[in-house]
């Protein structure tokens, strides 16, 4: 019986998220052919996937989608820009627009987009847990949030105008991990962490492994709709800092806004320049309701919010002692899988030798 295969196109295949997802897809025979596109070359060559070095504006993408009969597009190319950068905006928003137009013109059935729960914006008038149908009113001080908000608004318009392809948006809560770089990780990476005086918001976190797992799960099940993805439980910012052994520096929110803007403009480095999180998110909760994730998508994250924080700080502490600073090729700590494999092999050989021994004792081979 022939296995029904699906054709997948992944954008941003050379960037961390794409590079992590591609091997998973390659290992699954249900996805064929697999196409990766990005504007820069990948760090390592792919085993099975085709890679094309094109940017999202390329008009050939529409033809590629047509010819390869691409079923699902997984759109992961998004550049977090901390200062205003027109090029990034051009890639993030205008590039997505071109990609969606190409999808609409071809027979692509589904598009998966990775987004952020920060697009809801932090506001004291929000309910504690924001559902997926809430209005998008993210904050505008930082470009990466602004780009996301613009992107989501554009997708909203696109959904209203086009019936196909079907859209799936995964809105992830603050992502922590070992091998990636996110705004919240930059924020928690200094010894003195600026906070807003008198406020202690609740945070949700997602571990990078869960991000990849969620993307793969969505690709596999073909679910459509908008989903908030976050680890279970919430954790106050003060507790996050205590777990990490960081020192909070309470500043008034106006001062924080002003100084971080000035510092950024001046291109200076220092405590206040490393606030890639807007003051609003340090004042009020911005939490996603994850019931839909569990009930409709059927995805259960492995790491709770607290687990993700503990894992992240464990990695931060050990990072400087690892052989490759920042760019770790093989993590000496994560050999659990290998150990498990070795043990299973050992058990199997033990079992075999036991069997042979018993046979020997019973003397069946002597005859």
């Amino acid at each position: 019986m022939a296995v029904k295969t699906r054709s997948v196109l992944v954008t941003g295949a050379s960037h961390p998220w794409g590079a992590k997802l591609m091997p998973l897809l390659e290992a699954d025979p249900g996805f064929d052919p697999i196409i990766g596109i990005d504007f820069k070359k990948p760090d390592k060559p792919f085993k099975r996937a085709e890679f094309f070095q094109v940017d999202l504006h390329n008009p050939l993408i529409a033809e590629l989608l047509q010819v390869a009969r691409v079923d699902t597009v997984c759109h992961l190319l998004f550049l977090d820009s901390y200062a205003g950068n027109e090029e990034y905006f051009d890639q993030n928003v205008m590039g997505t627009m071109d990609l969606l137009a190409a999808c609409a013109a071809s027979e692509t059935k589904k598009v998966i987009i990775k987004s952020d729960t920060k697009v809801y914006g932090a506001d004291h008038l929000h309910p504690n847990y924001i559902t997926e149908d809430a209005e998008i009113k993210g904050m505008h001080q930082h470009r990466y949030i602004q780009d996301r908000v613009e992107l989501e608004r554009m997708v909203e318009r696109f959904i209203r105008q086009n019936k196909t392809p079907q859209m799936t948006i995964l809105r992830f809560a603050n992502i922590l991990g070992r091998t990636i770089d996110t705004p919240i990780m930059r924020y928690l990476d200094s010894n003195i962490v600026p906070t807003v005086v008198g406020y202690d918001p609740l945070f949700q976190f997602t571990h990078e492994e869960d991000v990849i797992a969620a993307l793969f799960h969505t690709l596999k099940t073909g679910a459509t709709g908008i989903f908030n993805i976050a680890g279970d439980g919430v954790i106050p910012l003060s507790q996050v800092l205590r777990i990490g052994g960081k020192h909070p520096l309470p500043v008034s929110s106006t001062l924080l806004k002003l100084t971080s803007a000035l510092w950024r403009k001046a291109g200076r480095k220092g405590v206040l320049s490393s606030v890639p999180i807007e003051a609003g998110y340090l004042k009020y909760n911005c939490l996603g309701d994850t019931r839909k994730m569990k009930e409709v998508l059927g995805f259960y994250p492995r790491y709770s919010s607290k687990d993700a924080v503990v894992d992240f700080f464990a990695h931060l502490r050990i990072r400087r002692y690892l052989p490759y600073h920042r760019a770790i090729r093989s993590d000496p700590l994560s050999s659990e899988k290998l150990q498990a494999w070795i043990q299973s092999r050992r058990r199997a050989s033990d079992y075999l030798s036991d069997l042979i021994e018993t046979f020997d004792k019973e003397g069946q081979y002597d005859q």
Partner: protein
Amino acid sequence: MTSNPRPGTKPEKVQCKAVTKKGVRCRNAAKSGEAFCAMHLSMQKEERRPAKEPEERFDAKDLAESLAEMQAWMKKRLRGDYEVDEWGFDEEFAELFMPLMKFLYHKYWRVTATGLENVPAEGRALLVANHSGVLPWDGAMIIMAVREDHPQPRQVRALVLSLFFSLPFTGTMLQRIGHVQASPANSERLLNEDELCLVFPEGVKGIGKPFSRRYQLARFGRGGFVRVALKTRSPIIPVSVVGAEEIYPLLVNLRPLASLLGVPYVPITPTFPLLGPLGAVPLPTKWYIHFGEPINIQDMTYRPSEEPLLVTKISNQVRDTIQRQIYERLKTRRSVFFE
């Protein structure tokens, strides 16, 4: 003082457990099946103090132990080794305020809580109460009533005006001690989790009303609480609080200043702002909290078209019940400060 019944008395005769006003153990025999004698049974609950254990002597060892305990606790907190629940409620932290809350409940306002049998021991329910007293102490005392006097103590989740959550320190504080920001989505989620919710439909209109209009219920919002109760099939329990209206007699509300500051009211009371921060000390009035009979919404059947009518009907019914409970209490109240 002998606490055992004298030899020769019948075994079923038990001595009354109460202590008289002079501090002597009551000599009367307890009524059969009860712990107190007929006289003390008829008395109010806080008056018939049960006999205390003999006072423990000061012990340096105990002190050292409790200090070590405290140190361990602090260490644990500083390491970030604690949990908050999904609403930001930090039970360990809230526990720190219990001595103050217990003092306010038992000694300062001497709260008499009645009708607690109407509060279910488990499962969802929506407590609806009248709001008064400039600062929301009434919510705290209703929470205490269910914690202290309910046979099966529960944590009440009070829904507080979202304005308080936008204020520095206050917002975080309220969240950590178990309050939740008032919104239909939040109350629906809480009730679906089978929590005990407390709402004040009067909102700011109730808490910031002038002293001259005390014990007259303000408008009950737009009936949002009934809609949530209908949706989640939760019984509504009307709660009336008497005594909280007089803790800060609000003489004048400086409306222009309030709108300038973006707050709902700027109160002028006999002590505030005259005495500065001391003006925030409430007056020691005598409080009565009554939990009325539940309105069993969960058994109601109705067509979707009937819902708006039902919402107004139930909203008015709850309002009238609370107002009636308040008047019933006021009829027998002889003094604001004493029993």
